[in-house]
């Protein structure tokens, strides 16, 4: 359940940033989470509910931008959507892929007051 330690890191980042902005409340948090970031959304939501209690994120609205993974085929130069590392290139069938996006795991922005 690394999602719990991920949530802890998110709380740290968000509280630090909110305090730096002299805010007392975090109203919204926006996260970028790629589909190949290694995060299970159900596990994240589950960990979130418990972990944000008594933090500035308790009561904050969580917005998640799920970033769909895309890869580039090193063999034939095609660009396409993928779900897994072992997906084959839909054009040439090879597995020499370079992941272009989908591994994001970041705190994008906050709305604080």
């Amino acid at each position, binding site marked *: 359940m690394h999602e719990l*330690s991920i949530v*802890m890191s998110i709380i740290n980042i968000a509280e630090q940033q909110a305090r730096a902005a002299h805010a007392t409340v975090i109203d919204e948090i926006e996260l970028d989470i790629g589909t190949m970031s290694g995060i299970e959304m159900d596990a994240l939501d589950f960990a979130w509910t418990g972990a944000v209690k008594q933090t500035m994120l308790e009561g904050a609205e969580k917005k998640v931008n799920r970033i769909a993974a895309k890869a580039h085929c090193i063999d034939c130069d095609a660009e396409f959507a993928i779900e897994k590392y072992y997906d084959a290139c839909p054009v040439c069938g090879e597995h020499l892929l370079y992941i272009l996006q989908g591994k994001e795991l970041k705190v994008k922005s906050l709305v604080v007051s």
Partner: protein
Amino acid sequence: MCATCGCDSGSKTTYKLRDKDDEHTHSHPHVHNHGYTHDHPHDHDHPHPHPKTVVDVEQDVLHQNNLLAQRNRGYFDAKNILALNLVSSPGSGKTTLLERTLKDLKGQLEFAVIEGDQQTSNDADRIYATGTSVTQINTGKGCHLDSHMILHAMQGLKPKENSVLFIENVGNLVCPAMFDLGEKERVVIISVTEGDDKPLKYPDMFHSSTLCVINKIDLLPYVPFDIEKVKANAKKVNHQLEIIEVSCTSGQGLQEWYGWLKSKILQPETV
């Protein structure tokens, strides 16, 4: 509070340098300051809502881990230490592989070991028995090592210059993939009793590793495990992955592993 990294204490992580036999439980907590201070020159209970402000953060969630990992990496580079992060499911044979390696290469290379387990110092005891200095990290409920734990483990262990540092991660093929420890290479170990679809089930780990050791090949006659299939699956996930087949029991393939290890050691540059 920990002067090195500013962490304040509270986690259940413990560090025990086995070769001195002192339990230096420098446990500290993973900083979540739940109470925050909000210094206001004026005294009031916020009857006025503060205006809403948007803060652009754009920060990687693993930023802190990655920073400390880079710091560890700098330390390793400066001392020419080859740090290897060994990851696998529980019981694939990580500690056994280390025991063999430490015995077989004794006198040829200098070693130090960090053992990561949720509980017990059994693995550190096994390493210590080979005459190698070792620090046991017990993570409590934690299911992976992170760069901050390595930083603290190193303070007691003090690996020598030009040595090989083995870091045996907590047995878990999922989240150790996300946590850079500052290692030079990540080595994923699977054993033939685990099924040949492991790379497809846990692709992140195979994707982020540079070497895959397939252990317990002495058991191949007894288990349905298609070694060519597992290799093909692993290559699908990571086409650059090197693969070495070994048996820690019979010794088969170990020379290839030792060859790989030696090939990774940089000769210190002479100016």
